């Protein structure tokens, strides 16, 4: 019998603790597969954020650091500069990266740090129980925008890829989603490209991954994906914003 799929070596045997229907597990797997495929498992290190994926350091089977909320790009900078022989990525959610950690992500990108950033955007704070995120859509209800996000009062959602694309240094910026099997295959390509560029020391790579939060959105996982397709993707359009390896500016 031929094994055609198995657990990536870069994942530990620790079961994911995520809610039913959550897509963090899929995102973790894509990263782990890409690390395995690039033969980087022994020189890879990841930075876990604060948020639902705070325990990511238990799930990846290589050295990991857990950062303070939003500080993962600074921690990644410190590790990469201290040990250039290591390959470093951060894994961050929308609250972590686009609210409390805005300064760290912008400046790590602007310095062109040789790290990869995987930014999982589900438009809500999951771990703390469904509060408004910087990427929460207009009129979307959360526990801290119970009457819907009023843009005149609470501001508009932030499009991080578009913001990052104003910077000169980043080498690769792409937004993908995990909302269907076809989307996951596309996402895998983007994640694998970021890891490959990381291996080749091309520069700063940034992949935004549109995801869902069935638990805090209060809708079942399949409907959550449909909801995200109908509501998130028109605002957060999947796109390759920059790929210097392919001449995309």
């Amino acid at each position, binding site marked *: 019998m031929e094994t055609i799929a198995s657990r990536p070596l870069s994942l530990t045997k620790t079961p994911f603790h995520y809610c039913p229907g959550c897509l963090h597990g899929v995102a973790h797997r894509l990263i782990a597969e890409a690390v395995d495929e690039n033969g980087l498992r022994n020189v890879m290190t990841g930075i876990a954020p604060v948020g639902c994926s705070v*325990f990511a350091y238990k799930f990846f089977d290589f050295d990991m650091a857990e950062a303070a909320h939003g500080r993962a790009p600074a921690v990644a900078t*410190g590790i990469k500069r201290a*040990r250039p022989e290591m390959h470093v990525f951060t894994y961050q959610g929308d609250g972590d990266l686009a609210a409390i950690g805005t300064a760290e992500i912008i400046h790590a990108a602007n310095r062109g740090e040789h790290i990869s950033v995987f930014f999982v955007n589900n438009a809500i704070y999951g771990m703390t129980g469904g509060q408004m995120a910087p990427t929460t859509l207009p009129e979307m209800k959360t526990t801290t925008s119970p009457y819907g996000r009023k843009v005149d009062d609470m501001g508009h959602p932030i499009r991080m890829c578009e913001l990052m694309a104003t910077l000169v240094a980043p080498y690769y910026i792409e937004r993908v989603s995990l909302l269907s099997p076809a989307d996951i295959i596309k996402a895998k390509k983007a994640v694998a490209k970021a890891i490959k560029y990381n291996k080749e020391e091309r520069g700063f790579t940034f992949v935004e991954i549109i995801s869902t939060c069935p638990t805090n959105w209060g809708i079942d996982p399949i409907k959550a994906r449909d909801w995200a397709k109908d509501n998130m993707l028109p605002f957060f359009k999947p796109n390759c914003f920059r790929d210097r390896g392919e001449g995309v500016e």
Partner: protein
Amino acid sequence: MSKVLMKGNEAVAEAAIRAGCRLYFAYPITPQSELIEYMAKMMPKVGGTFIQAESEVAAINMVYGAAGAGKRVMTSSSSPGISLKMEGISYCAGAQLPAVIVNVQRGGPGLGDIQPAQADYFQATKGGGHGDYRLIVLAPSTVQEFADMAADALDLAYKYRNPVMILSDGMLGQMMEPVEFRPAKTEEEVQELAKQHENWCICPNEDGVNRHHHEINSLEIDPLVLEKHVNNLFVKYAEIEQHEVRCEEYNINGDNEILCVAFGTASRIVKSAINDLKTEGKSVGLIRPITLWPYPYECVARALHKNVRQVYVFELNKGQMLDDVKIAVAGRCDVKFWGKVGGIIFTPGEIKEKLLECF
């Protein structure tokens, strides 16, 4: 090596590089800017890393990353910037990371001013960041000592896997004094230092039985595990308290009628007053804590000779060390305090006047 005339800010930077520090992350702030500028100039020359971070917060988290990778690393700032670093310092303490933080103190609270002060004693020694943790705190009183402490702080940080703060002030940072540097570590020695920590830090891995999974982490979500972790930290702190207390005894003898306690810049001025009084036949001793944590309680207690009728604490703040001195004295003698704030430094004449009131 012969002595050179240098500012404290530059001397501590040079000494840190000589002691094998190859990574430095910081943000500009007066009165420590010569330190960051010196590092910007010198780090590229030794193949080291210098980053002017986007904030103090980012700088200390870069330190967290580099320390987590087992390399000798330092950051520096002045009081308001140190407040910003406190989050990261707490994380370093929790994750048991060997980081060195230099505070060139200025007047506070808030933006305060840019003159020398000692008003961050509480912040440095009693917490500052959240949670149950301790920083080793070294307080220099000369440029020479400031420089020497760079190496000592790096050694202590790695010996105990704990953040160490050098608590200096704007006077020590800005003042020029002769300084003699210790020999610089060779590149081989610097590499060797990093290798010593590859049993816990982020570093290249291998397949098979020796494969490791190192976690740089301060999160323990299970209360029983966190309890054990914090208790273990305090076993380490007890060891530090047992082995690393440092203080200077100045003119301490059985004739002392007054015992002064002062640290850093303040202690220099107290020494001048003591010398002056000595010529007038009045005996005053000084305990100068060099480690502010662990605090030299025993040294203060031992110096309470039978003729001492007054303990006098002098600080450039409103009496932040006073409670520690009272703990040491334990009611055996009256303890007075006098200090100046706002970045104003007292004079030997003012100290002498205060002491004469006790004779």
